[in-house]
């Protein structure tokens, strides 16, 4: 493999990590503040993608589509928070898993009922549809650079939000001690609705951005959801920094694993079995990574016990 190709693959790994981060950030935020395992996070991702496809279909504008995705996912998040999620905060993880599993069923089939069974069309904006030439001669899709940029902006924004703003202070207080923020005179239920809607909006944004280069279809959220959980568990649940590091680790492992493992095995196996073994192992690689991290750090890289 040429060095240029290797660098490009590393870039791909980082980029796929950033996509995962967009999804994982909301999930880890919600877990950190409210202690809630939200399996329906993938459904909010799907809501974002479908809303974007619908808005883009009506208006033809990608920017409006993104705005629509943010609004729809935040609204969906706020609604389920008010109706369902807030009854789950003081329940154990088991009840949360079952209730949000039920939400997945409801969201998926309602979406199919509304939009039909066929995948929807959502394309990248024309201005970003081609590749750009990076230093070193690498051709790289412009839209993927946009995703990297958005991901970094979101990461910076979240760090700033948590470190600098009033809401951030309240969020941190809530993470440390739930009763304390009540004592501080903060309206906890409002704060929780807000945080949940924010997490949902992040998922919706991820869905819309990623939907433009993937398939906008029912059930698109579940595989990403599992990956996002892997990410936040590796990083340490509740930690934004952990989510970022975990996402990059998972992105790199996944991408480089699928590229390098077949090459590695072909050095001592014949071609077809090397491809088979390499592909099989690479599809297991991120789970092996996660199990490995947890064995050495049972609460993730940046998690607290």
């Amino acid at each position, binding site marked *: 493999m040429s060095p240029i190709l290797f660098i490009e693959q590393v870039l791909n790994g980082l980029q796929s990590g950033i996509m995962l981060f967009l999804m994982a950030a909301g999930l880890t935020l919600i877990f950190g503040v409210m202690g809630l395992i939200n399996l329906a996070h993938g459904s909010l991702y799907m809501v974002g993608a479908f809303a974007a496809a619908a808005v883009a279909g009506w208006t033809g504008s990608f920017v409006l589509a993104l705005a629509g995705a943010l609004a729809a996912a935040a609204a969906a998040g706020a609604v389920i928070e008010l109706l369902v999620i807030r009854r789950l905060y003081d329940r154990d993880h088991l009840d949360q898993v079952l209730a949000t599993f039920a939400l997945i069923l409801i969201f998926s089939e309602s979406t*199919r009922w509304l939009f039909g069974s066929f995948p929807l069309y959502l394309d990248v904006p024309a201005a970003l549809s081609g590749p750009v030439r990076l230093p070193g001669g690498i051709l790289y899709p412009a839209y993927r650079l946009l995703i990297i940029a958005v991901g970094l902006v979101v990461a910076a924004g979240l760090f700033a939000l948590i470190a600098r703003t009033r809401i951030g202070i309240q969020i941190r207080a809530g993470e440390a001690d739930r009763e304390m923020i009540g004592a501080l005179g903060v309206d906890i239920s409002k704060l929780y609705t807000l945080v949940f809607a924010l997490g949902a909006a992040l998922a919706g944004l991820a869905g819309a951005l990623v939907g433009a280069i993937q398939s906008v279809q029912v059930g698109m959220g579940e595989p990403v959801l599992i990956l996002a959980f892997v990410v936040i568990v590796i990083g340490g649940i509740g930690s934004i920094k952990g989510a970022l590091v975990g996402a990059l680790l998972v992105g790199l492992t996944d991408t480089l694993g699928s590229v390098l493992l077949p090459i590695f095995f072909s050095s001592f196996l014949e071609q077809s079995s090397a491809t088979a073994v390499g592909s*099989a192992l690479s599809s297991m690689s991120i789970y092996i990574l996660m199990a490995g991290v947890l064995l050495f750090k049972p609460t993730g890289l940046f998690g607290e016990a």
Partner: protein
Amino acid sequence: MRRETLLNIVLFALLPATALAAWMLDEPFIITLATKAAILALAGVGLNIALGLGGLISFGHAAFFGLGGYAMGILASHAQSYAPLMESPFLIEGTKSMPVIWLVAIVTSALAALAIGALSLRTSGVYFIMVTLAFGQMLFYFTISWPAYGGEDGLSIYVRNGFPGLNTLDPLTFFGVAFAVLALVLWGAGRLAKSAFGLALSAARQNPERVETVGLAPYRLRLVAFVISGAITGLAGALFADLNRFVSPTMFSWQTSGEIMVFVILGGVGRLFGPVAGAALFILLEHVLGGLSEFWHIYLGLILLLVVLFARGGIVGTIAGREVAHD
């Protein structure tokens, strides 16, 4: 008599009553459904030992369910093609005998549970949930991409395996076999919950520090519970494979883990007969709602949601009330 005991008797009688009624009405498919309910309840009883008694939220029990299934699939497919599994260093041949297959399924899944549990139990809480999920996913992807036994296509076994002296092809007989296994395991699980081990395990769930202070190691208690739990779920997997005469990687998927968990929660966590109630209700819903609408998952989701939000303690908990569950 306590209400829960009464309820348990009703629940226990419900499955064979359904199967018998279906037999008399000549509705063999209803017998199949009752068999499915019994087998999935068995998987749930297995999970419930880890989940209810031990407080171990395993999101990876599909691993054991699938291993049990593949134990059946691999042994029976070799018997079907008369090709031995292994010739050196010693000959291992396939088999179509249920008791042998069950034994292999139990041992295989117990060993897997020992390995997975030994590693996973170093973590706790959400991390435990996710690391067990990770092990399940590993096996899922492994079976999909492992060509020897059909990969994603799975393995079809054309004729159901045999049990000495019984005609397992007859739906009612096979129901009887599955139900007898369920009854035996329920009895064993009931004894287990009341045993010294059950007392200590459940105490470790309520307060691990307490258990340590009396000189018992929670890790060991939990590991043993995880192994027993995995072995039972593995046995259920072998039976499930025999019900369908088919195994596939779907048995390893995270949705399968989720469904087994749903049976337990729906029925009532930690209640001996909870999984029986949960599995029966789930299959009833699937059957009835599936006929009503193409979008029946919406109604299923709504019902699950209502149960979690308003019927705490699951079906058994709601009907029997909040009595002490472990005496």
